[in-house]
């Protein structure tokens, strides 16, 4: 049986893991390569590294980080942040990523999705979407507004429409972050996740808001997520992916165990 994936997410700035609360207040949480290897050892099904360094110098640091991180990883490894061109993507793949995620650049130049997909396969292209519920819309959830530039800039696009376009262009997966929930540890936005998951035929990874095991049970059930991202829940030794998955299994969620 296909299992629900628990994906450990490392937000990386200038070569260090950080974790923000609603996209600000960054806290240092260690070396990416060490953290990634630890998560894999502790049962994470996949590792996502999101680079939030904006500077040019940071890009070279990122490739070194990706190379070092990939060296110790034998589970799927996705890298996102600052990938603006197919060439940027190629460098990240060469450094050892199995998948790349694109966000702002894909909204600016949607054909980037087609282009990377053609060269590296749809399985290698994850489209990351940051969305915030839109109280002014007729359907605040399905028309949740897509933001770019780390959640700083609204695009006027509705989340479901954009997810569908990404799929049609050849995205292999959608990584959906609820900006309302991110960093709160108050639970995933299950309505938002379900709206997107039901609208597309590709897997949806839910992100933003993980705080307890029940939140994961909820997003895999009500939220119809295929995978869920967790960052701060692991970083400070609160829980490992393995213990999270053991509890999920007890709650009837199909997960990869033993791991």
């Amino acid at each position, binding site marked *: *049986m*296909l*299992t*629900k*994936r628990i994906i450990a997410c490392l937000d990386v700035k200038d070569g260090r893991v950080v974790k923000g609360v609603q996209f600000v207040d960054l806290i240092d949480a260690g070396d990416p390569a060490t953290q990634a290897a630890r998560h*894999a050892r502790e049962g994470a*099904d996949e590792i996502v590294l999101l680079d939030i360094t904006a500077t040019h110098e940071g890009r070279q640091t990122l490739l070194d980080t990706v190379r070092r991180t*990939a*060296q110790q990883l*034998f*589970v*799927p490894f996705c890298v996102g942040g600052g990938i603006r061109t197919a060439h940027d993507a190629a460098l990240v*793949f*060469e*450094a*050892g990523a*199995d998948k790349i995620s694109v966000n702002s650049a894909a909204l600016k130049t949607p054909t980037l999705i087609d282009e990377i997909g053609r*060269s*590296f*396969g*749809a*399985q*290698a292209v994850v489209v990351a979407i940051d969305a915030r519920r839109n109280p002014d819309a007729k359907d605040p959830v399905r028309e949740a507004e897509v933001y770019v530039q780390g959640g700083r800039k609204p695009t006027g696009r509705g989340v479901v429409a954009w997810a569908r376009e990404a799929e049609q262009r050849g995205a*292999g*997966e959608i990584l959906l972050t609820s900006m309302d929930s991110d960093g709160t540890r108050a639970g995933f936005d299950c309505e938002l996740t379900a709206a997107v998951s039901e609208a597309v*035929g*590709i*897997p949806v990874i839910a992100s933003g808001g993980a705080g307890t095991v029940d939140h994961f049970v909820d997003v895999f059930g009500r939220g119809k997520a*295929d*995978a869920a991202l967790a960052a701060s829940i692991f970083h400070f030794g609160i829980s490992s992916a393995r213990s999270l998955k053991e509890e999920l299994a007890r709650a009837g969620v199909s997960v*990869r165990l033993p*791991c």
Partner: protein
Amino acid sequence: MRVTVIDYKAGNLTSVLKTLRHLGAETVVTDSDLALIENAERIVLPGVGNFAATARLDATGITGAIRAAIHKGTPFLGICVGMQWLFSGSSEAPEQPGLGAFSEACTHFAESTEKVPHVGWNSLEIRDGSKLLAGVEKGEHVYFTHSFRAPVTSNTAAETFYIEPFTAAVERGNVMGTQFHPEKSGATGLKILTNFLQWEPTC
């Protein structure tokens, strides 16, 4: 131990190379040097992306070289599209023949309400006698990402269920293939690749 890894310009080989090296193998990559295939100790054909990309194997003469190497007993492992290529073809690119080591053809997953591609960790139902999967316990999980699949046949070494049962691993003597990615399948995947690297013919 030297492994010849075939590059047919369809996606990236980094993960496969890194994992083989981690397991102590020396790797050589070729996209055209037939001597490296003829003299190979072992051959790995990775693959992601579209079946149509395997046309390059015919154009470069690699298909013939692999057929000859397999015939003389060189251990061969196809991964993902590399496994599908061992069959007669795929409905993904009907005009492009596979190697035909196995006579069946690969097809798209049947219509259903489930998502396609099949992405993630799924379990293996292993048949007795597989050397490639020796030591892997029933129910261990491996990582898949694909939309086309090979049917279950008499050469199936392990099957997996998603929408329908399909071939997760195929094996006949020195010819082996996995639909899943052993290089991305944690400790289970490393065990399978180690089995391949240590594969010897049965006397």
